[in-house]
């Protein structure tokens, strides 16, 4: 499918914003600002999903990542002591950057040299209904059910760990 020029421009703007804000998250010393930049990064990724006609995923990205998870993060920062010390680097900074550079190079080489499978189908008007059909289809309903048990296990685990030994 040919991508329109408008979508292309939108993609590049959001891609640059996403990468720059994500770098800020790592490099900034003030973790409160880093958390806010993370929200920017999440939002621009939601924008990229829109350019891919994935409207439902984009909405979920905004609701869950830019909304819920960011608020949780900011709450956690507010409740943390010694927050002024921020986000100090340690002696693994150089090896970490080196590994990151190696991974980035490998990924770029791989993505450029691969023949990707391109979809020839026209994009759906609304993906929500299609996703729901798929999620409750015989094929993915097992994954759906496992996810519900997974959430329950996570909840029980969180309660066990968060609740102190009282009495």
């Amino acid at each position, binding site marked *: 499918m040919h991508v329109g020029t408008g979508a292309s421009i939108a993609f590049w703007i959001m891609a640059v914003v996403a990468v720059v804000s994500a770098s800020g998250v790592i490099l900034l010393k003030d973790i409160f600002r880093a958390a806010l930049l993370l929200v920017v990064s999440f939002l621009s990724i939601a924008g990229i999903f829109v350019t891919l006609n994935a409207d439902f995923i984009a909405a979920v990205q905004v609701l869950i990542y830019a909304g819920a998870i960011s608020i949780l993060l900011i709450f956690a920062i507010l409740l943390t002591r010694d927050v002024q010390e921020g986000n100090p680097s340690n002696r693994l900074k150089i090896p970490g950057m080196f590994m990151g550079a190696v991974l980035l190079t*490998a*990924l770029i*080489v*791989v*993505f450029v*040299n*691969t*023949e*990707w*499978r391109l*979809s020839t189908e026209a994009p759906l008007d609304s993906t929500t209904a299609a996703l729901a059909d798929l999620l409750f*289809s*015989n*094929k*993915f*309903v*097992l*994954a759906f059910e*496992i*996810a519900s*048990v*997974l959430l*329950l*296990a*996570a909840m*029980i*685990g*969180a*309660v*066990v*760990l968060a*609740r*102190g*030994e009282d*009495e």
Partner: protein
Amino acid sequence: MPLRDLYLLSPEISIVGVAFIIIMLDLWIERKGLLPILTIVLLGLPLGFTISLWGTEEQAFDGVLVVDTFSIFFKVLLIGVVTAVVIASQETAARFRRFQGEYYGLLLMATAGLMLMAATRELITIYLSLELSTLSAIALVAFFKDTRSTESGLKYLVLSGVSSAIMLYGMAMVLGVTGTSSLVEIAKAAPVSSLADNPALLLGVVFIVAGFGFKIASFPFQMWVPDVYQGAPTPVTAYLSVASKAAGFAVLLRVFYLAFGDFSSDWSMLFGVLAVISMSLGNFAAIFQTDIKRLLAYSTIAHAGYILIGLAAVASRVPGGEAFGPQGVLFYLTAYAFTNLGAFFVVIAIANKIGSETIDDFAGMSKRSPLLAGLLALCLVSLIGVPPAVGFWAKLYLFNAAVQADMVWLAIAGAINTAISAFYYLRVIKVMYLSPAPTEERVRLTPPIGLAVAMTTTGVLFFGIAPWFLLDFAIRATSGFPG
């Protein structure tokens, strides 16, 4: 969703159901000692369903869930492991003032996740099953809530998160190249005949190995093992070292034989290299350990390396010998389950009494408790791979598979590593038998843990003397493989 599908899923449904029942009963039952007994009795339900399915070769949920002898072999193994761990947990769990029901419930939910890993053929479902088992295990690792246990839990959480992210990235790449997440369809849709021709597919496969490598504790995802094993409650450590490894290998075998079977010559070498690095790294680091749990942690990395030999040995010079690798893996995992659980259970029994897990504090254990010292020695001898313990046959089958696959270097690397491992296992035996005991106080074996020790060590000896019973099951479990 036809009823038949639900029946095929009944082992997993019933084990999650048992988990719910135990957590609910915890609210009403005053005598918490009843909970493990109820758990063990109710575990008969999933076990019964699983055994009743033995012999069926069917698929459910559009081929996502597969019920074959291979998956049932692992389900029986996992239910057996969790039963033994529940029996061995009683003294440890009795120390918790609250949440005993949740402890057993989470153990069962982790088992449900592992059982599903061995039985599913679709990447998203596999991922969710893996996360179900990992998240439950994280809570279990941190269950003591003291500094060490919390640190272990946090490390486990962060590192498993990283490895899951890498694995998901790999799955996304495989999806991007093949357009499907079903293992059977991936095999059909793979556009090339060699992984090297499609870089994204290659990188995707490597990343997927990274995720499963975390579960089986192989290099390069082994760094969490010593810290987590040391800090976690010992029954949980025993559970992780055996169950999580078994299911990890089940899913590795399934994914690689089914989805990437055409590229076996490519990944065979990858697993061969990982095997050598894992066993060397585990064995060398184990030499310097003073804590028995850390020693067993490094030993578990080494054993992941030995088992990986079975994955590397795909080809064969003799007709029908292609199955030696998977058969060896299944045999080794079962033998390792008996042996390692036995070793951990004896350590629990001793540590509960003497209050220490340092190897030097086991000095003179042969005087203080001849039985426990003898059984620990038996398990350690089995871990080295000396007859008449079952560990000997396990190593023999795997090394044979490597030789048949024209990978003699792997068998040699395994043999050298076995010799190195003998050094640190024998050191523990030496301390128990030759060092003088600090006190004359006897270390007694109490009934619940004694039963668990008896179950596992009997297995070590029985299958050591009569390995063909177990081998027969391993052969039948891999007969329809890859299904």
